[in-house]
């Protein structure tokens, strides 16, 4: 995988080899021959190299739902400035990058406040960014749905390899139970306060967390019509 991208975020089509921080965590470097990290010299990849940037989107976001959610949060959650490291609107989706200490209180507010009412935890997934700029490679990403207001919200908490603990959300949304077991199993994120954090996909005696980026995919070479096809993670890669 590419070694030069760190976080998700928006991009913008500015030229001239400058760093672009257009409301997202990642910018891009546009340069005649500056496509570092890509084997592409044909121009097919448009010679664009991503450059990571950590920045919040500017308020107002320009997206009605995102602004409504953030305004409501500012009204009812006074510690918002401390709790939220960044708030990013990208492709019409609001992401709150939250400090883990603030997660339980914020979650309860998101669920219970009449102006927010995120009753449904749709999804919780881990993502591993080995080159995260903050050094916290493991991200626990929650997707919330407000059935009352028909809105969606992404809440992201990132933790380092050395202390991969995140407060469990099972007390707020019981459905987080299996999601958190899966993220623990596959990424090694430890959810404190979870009632029974055991492996769910892999066997109980498995070592390692298979969906981390440094965990090999595995596989063996396969003979096919006289040629040998290497396993997928050893084949030629273009990104």
């Amino acid at each position, binding site marked *: *995988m*590419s070694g030069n*991208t760190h976080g*998700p*975020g*928006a*991009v913008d089509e500015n030229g001239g080899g400058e760093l672009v921080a257009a409301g*997202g965590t*990642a910018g*891009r470097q546009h340069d005649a021959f500056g496509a570092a990290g890509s084997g*592409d010299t*044909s121009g*097919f*990849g*448009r010679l*664009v190299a*991503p450059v990571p940037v950590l920045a919040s989107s500017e308020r107002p976001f320009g997206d009605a739902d995102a602004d409504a959610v953030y305004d409501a949060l500012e009204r009812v959650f006074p510690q918002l400035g401390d709790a939220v490291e960044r708030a990013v609107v*990208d*492709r019409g*989706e609001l*992401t709150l990058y939250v400090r883990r200490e603030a997660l339980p209180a914020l979650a309860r507010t998101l669920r219970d406040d009449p102006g927010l009412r995120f*009753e*449904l*935890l*749709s*999804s919780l*997934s*881990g*993502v*591993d960014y080995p080159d995260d700029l903050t050094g916290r490679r493991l991200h626990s*990403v929650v*997707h919330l*749905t407000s*059935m009352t207001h*028909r809105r*969606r919200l*992404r809440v992201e908490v990132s933790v380092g390899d050395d202390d991969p603990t995140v407060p469990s959300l099972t007390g707020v*949304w*019981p*459905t987080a*139970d*299996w*999601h958190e077991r899966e993220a623990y199993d596959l990424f090694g994120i430890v959810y404190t306060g979870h009632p029974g954090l055991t*492996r*769910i*996909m*892999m*066997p109980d005696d498995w070592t390692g967390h*298979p*969906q981390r980026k440094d965990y090999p*995919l595995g596989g063996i070479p396969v003979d096919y019509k006289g040629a040998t096809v290497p396993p*997928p*993670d050893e*084949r030629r*890669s*273009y*990104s």
Partner: protein
Amino acid sequence: MTPNSTQQTHQPYEAGYAESASGRVYTVTGGDWEDVLGAGEQDAERIVVNMGPQHPSTHGVLRLVLEIEGETVTETRIVIGYLHTGIEKSCEYRTWTQAVTFLTRADYLAPLYNEAAYCLSVEKLLGITDQIPERATVIRVMVMELQRIASHLVWLATGGMELGATTAMIFGFREREKVLDLLEAITGLRMNHAFIRPGGLAQDLPDGVESAIREFLADMPKRIQEYHRLLTGQPIWKARMVDVNILDAAGCIALGTTGPVLRAAGLPWDLRKTMPYCGYETYEFDVPTALEGDSFARYLVRLEEMGESLRIVEQCLARLRPGPVMVADKKIAWPAQLSIGADGMGNSLAHIRNIMGTSMEALIHHFKLVTEGFRVPAGQVYTQIESPRGELGYHVVSDGGTRPFRVHVRDPSFVNLQAVPALTEGGQVADVIVGVASVDPVLGGVDR
């Protein structure tokens, strides 16, 4: 009497008993309790049973561990992971287009939903959502709704079989076969189609399939009436399902349960209506609901949903206009034009003639797209659609490369299966069978 059932054993699956920290643990492989426990073993009041196999999923991929007192279930534990094949991880080592072939195998009774949700995510990342041709979107909706019928029919068939209604099984699979014939004609495969691709569809509809779909639409309402006549008023069917495995709307939301289970509890939450995608807001259809929240209500909701899907398919047929089925951008659109040759489906001769003899540009596009794939701007999106089992969500992350950085499938079966303890604890052992069936889990999606 089993000869060794009262003997101590150290083999994990052999009949006998072993001493453990919590007391003597018996492993039983058959016979009567009295023979197993023998005289004087009256302290064994805690019985743990591995349930099944009763559901197709319990033949090896779903383990139900029940703690029972007599016929009453005191605790249900669900053990999954037996079908974990690392689909999400494998996607990170393929191009954006190749990943479709993996993801279609997740929920194998609704493969087109996996493809659609993933492709909608990739298209949102690419920023080409509004460039998808109208014809491609209409065909997507049409094949999805056909598949919803097929999926509900499998549920009816397997659920009926578990309750001993083998006629329901025969009827369900009979009609499902007709849907699969249609999907085979359209996509080339009965299941695991890899038909919906980022940017559009793999190919256009073949000649004559529209009339075949119309025949199916004319036939199917009579079949649904047949199911009603066979099952809806049937005393045994009702005795097994009415007021059994009740879960109310608040419980559903807390446990994340969506789809027919939630709608049978009275909440008309259907993403096709509440958060529309693929132009569903322009179709005319109703969202069937029920108030009881029991297994029978879930049965009725699914049966009615089949009728609503027929309505949508009919509207799709009326909307089909000639046109492209793949996005116009040649840097994204899969280049090959497929046709059936002597050795099966492959690139059409016309396409090969074009790239090898006529157009250098077309050759470059073909070569680059097939070997390297296209790049997707960095970012992350979450797309949710209404699959036959509930909210199917895709969290897709790109780092700007030619391969997905992360694909997470929020599979409705995975989440809904969590509700089974709430449905079954405190009830009878026989109702566990109904409870698991009424949730309609597909373990390919649960374990991925």
